[in-house]
């Protein structure tokens, strides 16, 4: 494997350097029918799950086939996507915010062959490569973070629980029987790179044990002041210890009751690992939304404080999600989102309908906003 130079000269990094050019301009990539009708669209219709038509005031139509997929994607898979787009869509495609792929054609005749092609492709293991769906009052793809495939602080995996959950919710990816759209998100630690705090159902990785302290190495591996400063709850303070052999060392001590298990210390200081096979697991949150439709956007609420990391298929997590989805499908009115439904029937009823236990962990005690979540009325349901 010989090193192939791109032309970059490490001795003169500034030579010939191009910087700050930004992304490619979006309109280089528009399919012709999009370029021509941009801003002129009149209305759309979902013809069947995963298939949309948008009609322009020019009379043009664009048919979109939306397919799900893992956002973790190999170049072989992307090349296959390109091959499909070349065959059917004149070499254009787009991705959605929620990691779906959209193939667009400009006439109804081109739709069937495209759909058939997409639906026929499977991985060797048997799963679909390009399942069509993810529109309307159903479940669409899960937006998620890295997990065990790339991050250093996750309390759960991302791709694994997502695959397991989407397998369980697959019918609702390809059907539109729910009262409204249902958005599922996953973040593998409380940093929530994926911003799951406003999802109908959120899967959140959470550590439950404070960091371990590798005293002997801590001062060598870390800048102690940085580790102390990293802690959002000021739980870390400097401390001196004596090793069994009598050497005195500088290290830190953690005020354990103050620790919120965020892992920020570990980011700054690798001698403070906190991952744990039984300590780590999943929090389920529900009832959030971002759309302004009918009611204001809402935060998700914690409805299950902890579920174990039971790889490879996280059955406790998928069962819990399935129960919430089924109770919602049965109880909510047309157009009602999970959170709107829960508020209408009352959260006490939500726990009953979803067969979830309420525990003291679910009462907010974190800083000011906590107070506003306690019940300050005599109105409640038995």
């Amino acid at each position: 494997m010989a090193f192939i130079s791109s032309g970059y000269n490490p001795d003169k990094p500034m030579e010939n350097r191009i910087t700050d050019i930004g992304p490619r301009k979006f309109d280089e990539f528009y399919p012709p029918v999009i370029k021509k009708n941009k801003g002129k669209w009149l209305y759309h219709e979902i013809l069947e799950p995963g298939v949309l038509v948008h009609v322009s005031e020019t009379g043009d139509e664009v048919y979109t086939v939306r397919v799900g997929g893992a956002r973790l994607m190999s170049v072989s898979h992307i090349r296959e996507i390109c091959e499909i787009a070349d065959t059917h869509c004149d070499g254009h495609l787009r991705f959605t915010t929620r990691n779906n792929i959209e193939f667009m054609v400009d006439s109804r005749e081109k739709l069937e062959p495209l759909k058939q092609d997409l639906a026929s492709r499977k991985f060797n293991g048997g799963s679909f490569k390009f399942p069509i769906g993810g529109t309307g009052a159903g479940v669409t793809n899960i937006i998620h973070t890295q997990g065990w495939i790339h991050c250093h602080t996750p309390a759960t995996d991302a791709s694994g629980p997502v695959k397991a959950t989407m397998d369980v919710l697959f019918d609702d990816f390809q059907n539109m029987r729910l009262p409204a759209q249902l958005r599922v998100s996953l973040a593998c630690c409380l940093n929530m790179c994926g911003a799951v705090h406003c999802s109908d159902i959120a899967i959140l990785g959470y550590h439950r044990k404070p960091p371990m302290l590798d005293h002997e190495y801590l001062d060598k591996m870390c800048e102690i002041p940085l580790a102390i400063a990293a802690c959002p709850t000021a739980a870390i303070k400097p401390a001196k210890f004596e090793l069994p052999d009598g050497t005195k060392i500088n290290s830190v001590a953690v005020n354990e009751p103050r620790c919120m298990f965020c892992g920020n210390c570990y980011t700054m200081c690798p001698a403070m690992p906190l991952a744990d096979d039984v300590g780590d697991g999943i929090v389920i949150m529900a009832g959030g939304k971002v759309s302004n439709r009918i009611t204001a956007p809402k935060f998700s609420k914690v409805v299950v404080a902890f579920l174990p990391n039971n790889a490879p298929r996280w059955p406790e997590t998928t069962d819990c999600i399935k129960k919430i989805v089924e109770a919602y499908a049965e109880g909510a009115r047309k157009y009602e989102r999970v959170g709107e439904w829960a508020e209408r029937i009352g959260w006490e009823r939500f726990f009953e309908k979803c067969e979830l236990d309420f525990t003291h962990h679910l009462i907010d005690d974190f800083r000011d906003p906590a107070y506003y979540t306690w019940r300050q009325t005599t109105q409640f349901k038995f």
Partner: protein
Amino acid sequence: MAKHETPLLDQLESGPWPSFVSDLKQEAESRAKNEKGIEYQIPVDVCEDLLGVLELSFKHGRTHWKHGGIVGVFGYGGGVIGRYCDQPQMFPGVAHFHTMRVNQPAGKFYTTEYLRNICDLWDLRGSGITNMHGSTGDIILLGTTTPQLEEIFFELTHTYNQDLGGSGSNLRTPSDCVGQARCEWACYDTQAICHDLTVEYQDELHRPAFPYKFKFKFDGCPNCCVASIARADISFVGTWRDDIKIDQEAVAAYVGGELPSNGGSHAGRDWGPFDIQKEVIDLCPTECMWLEDGKLMIDNRECTRCMHCINVMPRALRIGDDRGCSMLVGAKAPILDGAQMGSLLVPFIKVEEPYDEIKEVIESIWDYWMEEGKNRERLGELMKRQGFQKLLEMTNIKAVPQHVQEPRHNPYIFWKEDEVEGGFQRDVNEFRKHHQR
């Protein structure tokens, strides 16, 4: 033969949903075969080792990655996330596994030519594994070694006219909804402004000078498909201030059951015949709609543009013509002081090139935040610490009732000296002339 046994991961190959495990295996195989005779610049078995280390995490219930320290390309403070494996002897192919964020085009439309180029580059110089896309919006090239970083950057910029995205305490890669490109509800061109601001603020994007990360997101309407209101320090949400356009014939067609409600989104269940009273008028949050002689009427002054009626009857109701956006600021995930939703700062602003007015607001917010924000304090937290008034003052925006859900609950107003007639300096002796001690 696979390099590592992966009995746990193998169980994720079954089931209907696309299996990332099958995909990783396909890439591992393709690299092993190397039919195109590529001179892979990072270990050939990188995908095998990725599967191996992931299997070990599945077994241990713990990640096997370490924080990557500071790696990057010369002159940029972001765009590369360093990553090292904590079992490099077992999995040498992923001993270094750094990620590069490539700034996606606005709207995430692509030509296959572009994507193939990225694939070729990543085949040669990286793991061949990507995220399409990361949750901020970038194309994520997942896993390469330190010596490849500059090479990739050089090729991206020289051959593909393409830059990296943001990471660290700087402007993160902005992202947008599909908008006017294919959505009838877009109140402004999300792609145009997303691209313009990304290009304008390249320095802020590549060279961390902020207290913490900062995000722009662009939603064409209040449906908020990119969730800007929940996760952007400044969210741009399209809106209008004139009247919803009504096509009464189409209204009648919905009432008559000729057109499917909500664009056909509820077709999976029999919800009974469409009932405009129950499904639209009664659900309008402001109760500003009614029927008069079979015609749908809207008191537009009372409408809060929630999009419900328009979503239900896309062929009958259309967004108004006097369009622009609302700017909300300070949204963030819970860490640390709890989650924050965006708070309305600019109720309405026109979104027209060259976006000078908008840039003025952005820059005044940045000036304030860079001056007052503590290290790792998001804008939303600074706003909480110093109050919304302070933000209004710094952005020179006049307070209006639209800024609040309801007025304050306490009278503890911190009057400023210049707001009170005569100021605070008084003569106590003058007072005493009329009030004995």
